[in-house]
């Protein structure tokens, strides 16, 4: 039997959802659904001078949704009190006149799902988790006298959701974990620089094992930044690490193909379906069902079962990712990408795990092809521009590539800008591996949801500054 570990109040409300849906439908809502959503978690911060164990700000609430294909009316109630939810279901639709609309019957969806994991964070004590963080921090902190602090940050996100509509009765427990190592160094003149690395995934503590080499890489990265230069702005050949490749996918054909943006006429991609948007080496997908990735889930916040979406196939844009509203309005098939930050916010079309598919080259072959260029590492941020198809991605640093070899010369920070089709068209080699990295994605500057992005190494041309 699947052990969902549902919060007690949520588990107690679940059997009443059929009746609550009936209340909504009897008030002539063409479609009615209920989502119970609980998100809580734990953060542990251990550094040279302090330790903190704190709860991640929890959210828990019930969303009643009534939809007539024109407007989605929602009542979001904090908590899972059956009386409050039933009362809200009776009251909130009063006075609303729905447009008449008959939705196509949806397939029956039933099931309880739990993230596969070996070391369930909920089975470990806080003391054990703290000790594990201390151990990683201890291994890093004395590696160089220029280190002023090493901070290890562990985050555990426990998500529970129950979704019900006339054809669905679904529940899931999604467990996500991540751990950052941040190494802060100081030069004799007082300049402070830092480097970081992260491990993340949907799963348990088995995701968070650090080798000594990985820890040393972060220390070396921070120390190298003490001598970093600013790059001369201009167009460069570059190789992106999977982390940077993923953010390029995310900002270009991730945000750019969220179909709520099509509806708002904010996405240029809407005019490019089945058209060439990149080199034939480019394939991009979004897949919430990808096992172990940080952005994975079993069903979205609108009860759509997780499945992959092939967004770009061999350079041709195929389809976008949807929420229920935009799929209905645009009359296109739904994908499992209707997500909300928490119960207090609406659903939008959002990414899950977005990535470039692997190619056939080896990294060594790709580096050897670059006479003068940059090896770009550690993406620190990105911003979408679906209408203008611009890209802004900021990398923490990049190494010079000269004569087919990576040198010790470091530039930081480095901003990548460009016009999406030109950047994708410039890709001339794609490596044969796939690595994913977790993070948080906003819609604009809000509506934060956990996602992953990744891919292989890419060889491309773009403007750096």
């Amino acid at each position, binding site marked *: 039997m699947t052990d969902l570990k549902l919060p007690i109040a949520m588990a107690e409300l679940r059997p009443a959802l059929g009746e609550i849906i009936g209340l909504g439908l009897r008030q002539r809502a063409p479609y009615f659904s209920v989502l119970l959503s609980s998100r809580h978690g734990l953060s542990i911060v251990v550094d040279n001078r*302090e330790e903190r164990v704190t*709860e991640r700000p929890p959210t828990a609430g019930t969303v009643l949704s009534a939809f007539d294909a024109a407007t989605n009316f929602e009542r979001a109630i904090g908590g899972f009190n059956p009386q409050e939810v039933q009362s809200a279901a009776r009251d909130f639709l009063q006075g609303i006149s729905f447009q008449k609309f008959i939705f196509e019957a949806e397939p029956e969806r039933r099931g309880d799902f739990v993230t596969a994991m070996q070391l369930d964070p909920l089975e470990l004590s806080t003391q054990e988790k703290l000790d594990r963080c201390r151990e990683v921090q201890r291994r890093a902190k004395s590696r160089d006298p220029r280190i002023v602090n090493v901070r290890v940050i562990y985050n555990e996100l426990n998500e529970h959701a129950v979704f019900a509509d006339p054809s669905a009765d679904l529940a899931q427990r999604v467990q996500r974990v991540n751990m950052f190592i941040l190494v802060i160094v100081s030069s004799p003149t007082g*300049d402070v620089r830092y480097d970081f690395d992260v491990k993340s995934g949907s799963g348990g503590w088995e995701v968070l094992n650090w080798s000594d080499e990985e820890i040393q890489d972060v220390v070396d990265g921070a120390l190298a930044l003490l001598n970093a230069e600013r790059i001369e702005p201009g167009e460069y050949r570059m190789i992106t690490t999977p982390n940077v490749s993923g953010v390029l996918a995310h900002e270009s054909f991730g945000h750019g193909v969220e179909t709520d943006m099509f509806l*708002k006429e904010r996405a240029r991609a809407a005019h490019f379906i089945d058209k060439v948007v990149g080199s034939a080496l480019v394939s991009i997908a979004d897949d919430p069902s990808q096992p172990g990735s940080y952005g994975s889930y079993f069903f979205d916040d609108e009860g759509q079962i997780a499945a992959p979406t092939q967004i770009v196939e061999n350079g041709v844009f195929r389809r976008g990712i949807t929420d229920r509203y935009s799929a209905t309005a645009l009359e296109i098939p739904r994908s499992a990408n209707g997500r909300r930050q928490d119960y207090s916010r609406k659903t939008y079309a959002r990414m899950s795990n977005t990535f470039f598919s692997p190619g056939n080259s080896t990294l060594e072959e790709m580096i050897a092809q670059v006479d003068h260029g940059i090896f770009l590492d550690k993406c620190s941020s990105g911003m979408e521009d679906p209408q203008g198809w611009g890209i802004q991605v900021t990398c923490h640093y990049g190494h010079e590539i000269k004569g087919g070899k990576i040198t010790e010369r470091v530039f930081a920070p480095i*901003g990548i800008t460009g016009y999406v089709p*030109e950047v994708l068209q410039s890709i001339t080699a794609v490596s044969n591996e796939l690595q994913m990295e977790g993070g948080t994605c*906003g819609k604009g*500057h*809000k509506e934060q949801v956990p996602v992953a992005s990744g891919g292989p190494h890419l060889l491309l041309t773009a403007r750096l500054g």
Partner: protein
Amino acid sequence: MLNQIVEALKKRNDLAGWTVRHVRTRGAQVYAVPQGIESQRVVDGERYLIDVLRNTSTAEGTPAMGSGDASLLPGDDIEHAIDQATLVAGLVANPMHGLPGPAALPDVPLSDPALQKDASRVMRDVMEHMRAAVAKHPQVRLGAAECFGEIRNTHLINSRGIDAKQESTQIDIELVLHGRKGAQESETFDELRRRRVVDLDLEAAIEDRVKSTLDSLDATAPASWQGPVVLRDEALAIFMTGDDIGGSVIRTLASAESKYAGISPWEMGKPVFRGEVRGDPLTVWANRCLPFGSTSDRFDTEGLPAQRIEVIRENALIAFAASQRYADYLQIPATGAFGNMELPPGKTPTSELLAEPYVEIVQFSWFNPDPITGDFATEIRFGYLVQNGVRKPFKGGQLIGNYMDALANVRWSAETGFFGSYLGPQAARFNELKIAAGEE
């Protein structure tokens, strides 16, 4: 339930201190797409946040302090939550620190009475107001918009005797404008956060955005530029205060937490700049008392009263913004959260700051300097090159530099403005910034 929690905490003799916050929120959200109202939402929330302190000791036996926290929804098990928080507090051994005691709280205006009365109606009205304001301009249309209104009530009680309440409102607006001229299309996207509808100044805000939307139809990619760059109004406010995600360089480096962690190299009484200051001197207040400031409050999450703290005076660090915890660690006064950023008026009229030639950046894609090093390379969404009496619009290109170096060579306008979490000069002329050319 708050009383029950307080009574339960008072009975614990294993705690060195505790704080409880009862937070209730209610709000309304309206979302529009070009075809009509996409979604209407009414949202309620209520929870109790407990923080506890517990005496612990280090491995060497030195007295230390541990902290833990827990959240409860109405009806949750109070004793279990307190046990959990107490257990966690017993696991860590940090330097000794305490909780703030009672103090007079300033009466900071934080609420919009209309929103308090009927958030749903006000949000629908704001949406209609935006639609009507845009409709006056036939070349431009409202593509999408979101209006959020929220009323938040906080009641904080701690073991040292603080018993304080505050109510605040907040409005968040997003709007997308589309312009079209022949085959040319343009889009502007904007976000505004204020505590009152009146402070949105929707008519003026939309007039500005309409102009940008129309001008960007003629925008081209910029050539490389090194020289004066002017920021005004919201663009300057974003430059100064950052955003919820990227943070702010000044807030990061002026925080006691960053100092304690070794992240901030700033030292009390020393210049915050690493080189020569060639522009106007920098003075900054961290101001939580600012009427209707979007990060104002009467008290912060620890219960520290709102203050207006001079953080930087004439280029020198005067105070770190310090929570009680980090104030105790560093043995400095506790100021509470940073809040809004306030700068004094400059000495130069805006008209003089606009001496040609210069580049004016109206909107960044996302101004996200590294909050620790201050380095930035940020895409420009829209701006103007102003020379020979012509304002030539451009989009693209990157503004490149270092945040503190930029502030070391800036002139501030005499005119001031209020932009949510920023009060200060309405315009700034950065004398020497670099723009990397955009793509044609």
